[in-house]
């Protein structure tokens, strides 16, 4: 195996440090990848898969930076103090670290709600970067709604009770109060940001975008939301492709799961980017 190196450090940021893991290739990197992580418990469940993928990417010459956002993972702060804007700032911080540390071109890699963050961050910064999106969440409001439902499930309520719990939560949110769901406290600033987020690419986006999804079906196909996004985006002149691979949703399974086919398909995407340069 190539002599890749795994490093962990804490990057100074506003309100405290951000925990980072870097997987370095043997020799000069041919490219660098910044991971935008998924939301809440999905970060825990996908950690092993993301580490294995980072290792595979490093074996192919890519330097991979994984950052824990403010209030997430091992980074400073309480989850309940984090706002959507803080997380966009953290992507900028991570991007700056990569830009300062090596000359190789930078691409982004996202999982689930990390895709929503990348979308907002790219729009804000006006950058076009090659983007590998794993199972992107396309609608922030829906994602939040599904997360809030955990409250009902965790309390083992029936459907009517879940509805009532949900409306109570929504009322709390509307009143500008934080809500606690499945051990996570969500601040009004986080809820507002996620509620408003949706996956999009500006017309003429000048870098390749690849969307990979896992599907439990025997003949996997992209989700309707991603198919619509790809059609719309292609029509506006953006180079975007998507593929679906058979596999389990490793970001939400009870036990830790990995998907080697997804890693292999991603390595092929990185190979295409490297050729394009």
């Amino acid at each position: 195996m190539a002599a890749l190196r795994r490093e962990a450090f804490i990057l100074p940021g506003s309100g405290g440090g951000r925990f980072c893991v870097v997987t370095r290739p043997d020799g000069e990197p041919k490219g660098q990848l910044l991971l935008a992580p998924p939301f809440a418990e999905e970060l825990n469940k996908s950690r092993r898969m993301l580490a294995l993928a980072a290792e595979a990417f490093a074996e192919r010459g890519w330097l991979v930076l994984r950052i824990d956002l403010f209030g997430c993972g091992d980074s400073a702060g309480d989850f309940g103090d984090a706002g959507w804007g803080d997380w966009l700032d953290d992507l900028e911080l991570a991007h700056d670290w990569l830009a300062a540390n090596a000359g190789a071109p930078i691409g982004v890699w996202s999982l689930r709600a990390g895709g929503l963050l990348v979308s907002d961050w790219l729009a804000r910064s006006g950058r076009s970067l090659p983007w590998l999106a794993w199972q992107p969440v396309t609608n922030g409001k829906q994602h939040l709604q599904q997360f809030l439902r955990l409250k009902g499930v965790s309390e083992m309520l029936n459907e009517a009770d879940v509805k009532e719990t949900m409306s109570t939560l929504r009322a709390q949110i509307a009143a500008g109060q934080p809500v606690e769901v499945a051990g996570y406290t969500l601040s009004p600033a986080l809820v507002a940001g996620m509620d408003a987020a949706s996956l999009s690419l500006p017309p003429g986006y000048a870098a390749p975008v690849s969307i990979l999804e896992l599907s439990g079906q025997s003949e996997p196909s992209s989700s309707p939301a991603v198919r619509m996004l790809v059609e719309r985006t292609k029509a506006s002149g953006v180079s975007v492709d998507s593929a679906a691979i058979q596999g389990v949703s490793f970001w939400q399974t009870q036990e830790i799961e990995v998907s080697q086919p997804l890693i292999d398909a991603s390595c092929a995407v990185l190979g295409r980017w490297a050729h394009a340069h």
Partner: protein
Amino acid sequence: MHTERALVFDCRGETLVGVVSVPAHADAVAAHTGVLIVVGGPQYRVGSHRQFVMLARFLADNGVPCMRFDYRGMGDASGEARDFEAVSDDIEAAIAAFSREVPGLRRVVLWGLCDGASAICLSLGGNPLVAGAVLLNPWVRTAETQARTMLKHYYLQRLLDLRFWRKLLGGGVNLRGALGGVKEAAGAAAGAGSVPSDREGPVPKRMLRGLQRCDLPVVVFLSGRDYVAREFEQCVVGDAEWGAFMASGRCRVQHFAEADHTFSAVAHSEGVARATLEWICSLG
């Protein structure tokens, strides 16, 4: 106040990743006793809903250095995935790394949830730095304990549950499946099919042997709303040796009646953190 440092360290050629939380004031009461968090189940070092991160910071803010880490094959560590019965080397490597990072450290308390607690029991007795163990909802599952607990707490409770009957009458329950489950559970509880495959004996026995190998103080925290905790209680009730250990002067038990398996409500995880600190201070 505390500071945190990220570290990587070696375990048999693989790279493990950890974080130490260190009190800002080295003269604090318990600074010479550190807590090493041994993660259980399908979790990495931050824990469900960041429970272990918050615990580490709470302890460090109160003068106790703390370290969390990923064992081989989990989280950010390299290597093949492995289960809790094969992590003793990882725990040893983490204790060594913790000592290097916090030079004033004179002893280490191991803290584990679920099969992390079981892993601690299996590894006890070898390292002179280890000064005690905090065991949360220890995992003692065998086919037999699982079946007994299912019978006693799940199926019997369901039979008394009005909602279950409503669902049943409304066609919302697979009757054959539900009854099949009862039959299987009854069979296993009676001893059929529960032959341990490990020649060293079933896990609960080997955990007990670890606890008996040393004379270290131990505290057991049990959640009220958790089948893993119920199985542990069943195991203790059904085994004279376990019963004797639990009743001995060096074991303390504390119940958290409203808590679930991972102490997911903030109030419960904070309660565990406070109880951990109190117990460590009681060690003197």
